[in-house]
C-alpha cells in the first residue's frame, strides 16, 4: 500500500507542486478574509475587533427578513436575476455564432472590436448616456415625436425600468461576453467542417450540428458561473439607473444593503446580506452542477 502511494507520488508529484502557488493565493487572498464573515453573526465594532465583538446569532439575518419591504426587494432581485439568465445570458452565444459566419477577416475583427468597446465604459458613464437618451430632448423622445407621440420620461416610469436594465446589460457586456466563445470556436477542428461540406451540409446545419454542440460545454461552464451570482446583479448598474420613482421595480438587495449597510458602515449587516446572497448562489451552482453532470459529462467539479 505504502509502496503504491510512493510510486504514485514519484509520478504525480509535479501536479501537486504546480498547484501550490495557486492554493496559497486562494488561502491568503480569499479564505483568510472570508473567515472574517463571522461578523455576520456578531455585533461587529471596529473598536472591539473580531474576537471581542459579541455574538448575536442570526440577528442580522432576521433584520433582513423583517425589513418591511423585504418581499419587494427580494422579488425584484429574483425577477431581474431571471431576466438576466433568460434574456441576457444567451446573447453572447448567438453573437459569437453570428460573428463566426463572417468570412472576411478584417470585417470580422472590426465587428468584434466595435461590439466589445462599450464594456469599457463604466456604469456611471453608461447611465449618464441612458438618462440623456431618455431625456425630453433625447433620441427616444425625438423618435416618438416622429410618430406624433407625446414625450415620455421613461427613466421615471417604472414600466421601463426592466427593459432598460436588460437592454443596457446587453449593450454593454454582450460583445465582451463573446470573447470566451470565440476562443472556444477557434479550438474546433476544421476537418469537421470539411467533411460536413463534403456531405453537402448547409451553413445552417453546420452551425446546428458542429459549432453549437462543440460550444455547449463552454456555455454550460459559463452558465454555472453566472448562476452563482444569481442574486448579485451588479450593484453599479442598478444603482446608477435607479430613481425613487422606479424603486418599486428596481430596488434590489444590493441597493438596499448599500444604503442601509455600506453607506452607514454597518459591517455586520452588510456581511450577513452578502452571505445570504452567496449561500443561495452556491446552492444554485450545486444543483445545476449535478444536473449538468447527468445531462452531459460537464459540470465544474
Amino acid at each position, binding site marked *: 500500500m505504502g509502496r503504491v502511494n510512493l510510486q504514485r507520488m514519484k509520478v504525480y508529484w509535479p501536479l501537486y507542486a504546480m498547484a501550490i502557488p495557486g492554493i496559497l493565493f486562494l488561502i491568503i487572498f480569499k479564505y483568510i478574509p472570508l*473567515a*472574517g464573515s463571522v461578523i455576520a453573526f456578531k455585533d461587529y465594532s471596529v473598536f472591539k475587533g473580531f474576537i471581542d465583538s459579541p455574538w448575536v446569532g442570526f440577528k442580522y439575518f432576521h433584520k433582513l427578513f423583517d425589513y418591511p419591504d423585504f418581499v419587494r426587494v427580494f422579488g425584484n432581485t429574483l425577477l431581474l436575476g431571471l431576466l438576466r439568465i433568460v434574456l441576457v445570458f444567451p446573447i453572447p452565444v448567438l453573437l459569437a455564432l453570428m460573428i463566426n459566419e463572417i468570412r472576411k477577416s478584417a470585417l470580422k475583427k472590426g465587428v468584434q472590436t466595435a461590439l466589445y468597446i462599450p464594456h469599457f465604459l463604466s456604469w456611471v458613464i453608461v447611465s449618464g448616456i441612458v438618462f440623456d437618451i431618455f431625456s425630453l430632448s433625447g433620441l427616444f423622445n425625438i423618435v416618438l415625436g416622429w410618430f406624433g407621440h407625446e414625450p415620455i420620461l421613461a427613466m421615471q416610469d417604472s414600466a421601463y425600468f426592466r427593459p432598460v436594465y436588460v437592454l443596457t446589460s446587453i449593450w454593454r457586456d454582450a460583445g465582451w461576453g463573446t470573447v470566451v466563445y470565440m476562443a472556444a470556436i477557434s479550438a474546433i477542428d476544421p476537418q469537421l467542417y470539411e467533411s460536413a461540406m463534403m456531405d453537402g451540409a448547409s451553413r445552417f446545419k453546420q452551425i446546428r450540428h458542429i459549432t453549437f454542440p462543440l460550444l455547449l460545454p463552454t456555455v454550460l461552464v459559463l452558465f454555472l458561473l453566472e448562476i452563482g451570482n444569481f442574486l448579485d446583479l451588479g450593484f453599479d448598474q442598478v444603482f446608477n439607473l435607479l430613481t425613487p420613482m422606479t424603486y418599486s421595480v428596481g430596488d434590489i438587495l444590493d441597493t438596499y444593503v448599500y444604503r442601509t449597510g455600506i453607506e452607514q*458602515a454597518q459591517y455586520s449587516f452588510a456581511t450577513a446580506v452578502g452571505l445570504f446572497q452567496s449561500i443561495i448562489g452556491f446552492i444554485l451552482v450545486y444543483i445545476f452542477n449535478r444536473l449538468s453532470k447527468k445531462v452531459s459529462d460537464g459540470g465544474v467539479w
Partner: protein
Amino acid sequence: MAINKIGVLALTGALAAAVFTGCSSNNSDNSSASSPPAPGQSVAPKSEEVVDLEVWNGNNGFKPITKDSPLYNFYKEKLGVGVIQPYVEWNGGTNYLNQLNIKIAANEMPDLFLPLQGIEDNLAKNGAIADLTDLLPKYAPNVMQAIPQEVWDVVKANDPTGQGKIYYIPSVLNYGRETGLIRKDWLDKLGLEMPKTQDDYVKVLEAFRDKDPNGNGIKDEIPTGGREQAAWMDQLFAMYGVAMVEGKPDWDIYDGKLTYSAVTPNMKAALEFAAKLYKEGLMDKESLLNNKAKWEGKIDSNLVGNYFHWEESVNERLENINKNKGVKGDYSVLPILEVPGYKGFYTLKKMQTPAWVVKNTKDQTKLMATLKLLNNMYDKNNWNDLYLGVEGMHYTMQDGKATKLPDDKSTQQNLALSPYLNVATADFSINLYKNNTPDDRKWAVDQGIRNITDAQPYFKDIAGDGMPASVYEDYADINNRTLYVEYASKIILGQYPISKFDEFVDKWNKSGGEEVTQRARDWYAKVHK
C-alpha cells in the same frame, strides 16, 4: 482526501486567527508604537519642537499634504504644528467613512478628524476620542470663544455617555444661507412685482412660462424646478412652514410637539401644491431627474426663472449665463410667500454636523499639539491667511492685493483647515466677497452680498437644530428618507394621488418612524429642560 481537506481548513483557520487577533487589540492604546520619551526627558512639548499630526477631513481631489510640502510648511509656520493629510477619496462621504472605519479597525486612527454619520457617538462610547470638556477651555480657549455657549450646551446634551461632556467640536452657521432665488430682471421686463402671496407666485410662474421673458422667441423657459430625490426645490415647501434642508425634511415643532416635517399636514399641502405646478407645466418636467450638472446647466442656459440654492453664490450662475447668452441677469431673494393658514420660513440650522473630534491618546505630546493646532486654527486673526493659503499655489498678489487662483487640482494642495467654513458668519463671508473680487466681476458678486442681507428676515432656526444623527440608529431607511423620497416624487409627478400621503405617514411610522420620533422628543426634552 478528507485529511487534506481538514488540513487546509485548519491551516486557514489558524492563519485567520493570527491575522485577526493581531489587530483586534484596539482597546489598548498603542503608545508603545510611537517611541516613548527617554527617562528624565520632559513629556511636555518643547516650544521649538514641531509635532506632526495626521488630520483627516474632506478633499475634493486636491493634492495631499505631505511632510515638508509647501502647505505643510505654511501650516507649521502659521499654527506651529505639522499637519499631514493623506489623500482620502470623499465620494459623497461614503468612501471617506469606510476608510476611516478601516483605519480605526487597524488601530491607526488619525489624530484629528471629521466624523461622519454620527460615528462620534460610538467613538465616544468606546473611549476612542478625547473628552474635551476640560481640555478646550484650558488649552484651546479660541475654540470655546468662536462657538456660542448655547451651542456648547447642546453638544453637552448630545454626549452619548450621558455625562454632559464635550466630545466634538461642532460646525456653526450664524446666518441663513439657502433661499429661493428669482429672476428679478424677468419680473421687471414683464412688468411684474416681486410676488408676496402664493397666488402672485403662481401668476409670475405662468408669465415666465408664457411670455418669453428670455426673449429668444421660443417657449423654452422653465418657471421653477429642482433636482432628483425631490431635493433643492425647498422654495415650494418653505411657504407651508415645512422644515427642510436642501430637500431633506427636518424636525420642528408641529402641533406643540417636535415632529418630522415629512409627516405633517404642512408637507401634504406642499406636495399637493408642487403636484399642481408640475401638472400645469410651471415646474421643470425633468425636475426629478435633474442631477446637479443638468439643473445648473439649465439655469446657466438662461432658462430658469426660480431655483433654490445659496443666496450668496448667485454669481456663479449669473456669470455663466452672461458667458453663454450675453445676458446680465439678476437673481434676487424670493420672499416667503403668504399662504392662508400657514406660517412659512426658510430653514436655518445654526448647529451643523460635528467638524472635529480628537483621538484619545496617552501620548501627551500629540494631544497637546492637537489642542495647540485647534487653538491657533480658531484664532480669527489667522482666518484670512488660512483662507488664502500658500502664495503662488492658492493665490497671487496683484497690485498689492491678494487674489485667489482658480481651483486647480493638479497643483494645489488641499486647504484642510478652513475654520471660517466651520464657524460661518455673514460678516466674514461678505468681507471675503468684497476683498477678493476684481472689478469686472462685481456686478454679479455684489448681488450675492445683497442677497445675504435681503434673505435674513425669512429664516427661522428650527427646533430640531443640533439633533444628533444617532436618533436614527438602526433605522437607516428613515435616516436616508427612502420612503419619503419615493412617495414625494410620485405625488409631485402625479403618479400617486395626494391621498397616498396618508399611507406614507402610516408606513413611515410603522417602519421605525415612531421609535425615531420618540428618541427625537426625548432629546428635545433633555436639551430644553
